[in-house]
């Protein structure tokens, strides 16, 4: 599951993520990070579900971090997509492929949110969720 972590200004200087990773022994993968002196926004991939995921979310919330679950990392606009394939081979983790009727498929478990496909799409049909 991918999570969006929103940090308030007073949290930006604290190593909250590192502390939780060490304490929970969870292998979080940072997909995107925007941090400055005023606020922070991280997108992380957590290889957890069920109670373990709930437990992780509570740990962040206990530190004052707002947590949103992201069922999708990128959105594909089916009206704009022409099923050309310009995004498929540039994907460094092979998360994109054609499904039945040449519909573009995204494997959320592989996607690391690197944005390569967003830029590679000639029709701007792919956006970060």
């Amino acid at each position, binding site marked *: 599951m991918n999570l969006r972590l929103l940090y308030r200004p007073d949290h930006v200087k604290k190593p909250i993520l590192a502390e939780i990773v060490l304490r929970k022994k969870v292998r979080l993968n940072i997909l995107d990070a925007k941090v400055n002196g005023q606020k922070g926004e991280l997108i992380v991939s957590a290889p957890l579900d069920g109670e373990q995921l709930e437990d992780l979310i509570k740990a962040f919330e206990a530190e004052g971090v707002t947590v949103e679950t992201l069922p999708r990392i990128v959105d594909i606009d089916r009206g704009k997509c*022409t*099923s*050309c*394939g*310009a*995004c*498929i*081979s*540039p*994907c*460094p983790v*092979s998360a994109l*492929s054609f499904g039945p*009727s*040449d519909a573009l498929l995204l494997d959320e478990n592989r996607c690391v949110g690197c944005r*390569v496909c967003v*830029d*590679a799409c*000639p*029709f*701007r049909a792919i956006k970060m969720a």
Partner: protein
Amino acid sequence: MSDVRGSETLRKYEEINDRIRRGEATVLTADEFIEAVDSSGLQKAAKEVDVVTTGTFGAMCSSGAFLNFGHSDPPIKMLHCWLNDVPAYRGLAAVDAYIGATAMSETKGFEYGGGHVIEDLVSGREIKVRADAYGTDCYPRRYIETTITLEDLNQAILLNPRNAYEHYNAATNGTSRTIFTYMGTLLPNHGNVTFSGSGQLSPLYKDSGFETIGIGTKIFLGGGVGYVIGEGTQHCPQKQFGTIMVRGDLKQMSAHYLRGATFHRYGTTLYVGLGIPVPIINEGVARTAALRDSDILTDILDYGVPSRNRPAVKRTSYEELKSGKVRIGDSEINSSSLSSFKIAEEVAEDLRDRILEKRFLLNRPAELLPNEREFKPLIEKASAKIAVRS
């Protein structure tokens, strides 16, 4: 190719059209024709099939539209003209302009260009027109700003100097950084391969001898009817790099088959849906119409080399490229297309159905296209350099 190029030994255009009018014509897409050849052999299929339809939907940068705005009052002889902030070519009469697919917005840059203006026009959206002028006695006005739609225009003619490359080189990148090209995003160290063209559905490859496609050939263009008006720029048919110049009425077309597009850090373009009906007038034409992805070869070039003569990394087939994996040396590399096979198939099927429904007849070209043409480089002459320096 047959002995006399364009010889109608199997059937004549008039016979094909008679059969279409009577509802008796056999019309197959190129994919279906290959299946027919597989099941009954080339000779029998050539005897039975009247027309093979083709299709492609890909980025075609040498595309654009001539527009006539009509005259304002007082009238203006436009010096510069912008459509949604995209500059249009104005070296023409007072209110004629050419909007080219790769012209880019002066406010939005890479994100919006002439291709998008054409798509917006075809979609019926309003376009902001801005023009300036120096003013003359007959055209006193010096500035105008208004909006237009496709319907407001007297003429809107898609006229593309180079479309439908017979086939095209595939691309990879041997450098250590990601590069952004008109062949899309290319990952470092031969991280991926991209390619363009529809392979066995390719309009020009299906008549590789240029026996039927010529000036005046009626085609499917952008969802409407178009015509081949000559060889395209850089036409080089002897190397299977044939191209065509086409025109059609934008007012008949559909945004499903004309789409503005952006290649990241390269620029804007127009994706064009184009299909040509190939009449099976002789066995030579049948033979090229039956070519399959495995027969259609192309080079994978290293676009990381900033030269006109990019080195070929491998010669491959459209069959291998379309499989999604290409073997280069010991590595298996992901490959994907830049043009849409899905829409290319739709074009070929739509054209087939139009013919079967008697809405589209074929015609003998007024003149065949050259089947040999040198593609020359631009040579920088020493004398010109001296002249520039002085």
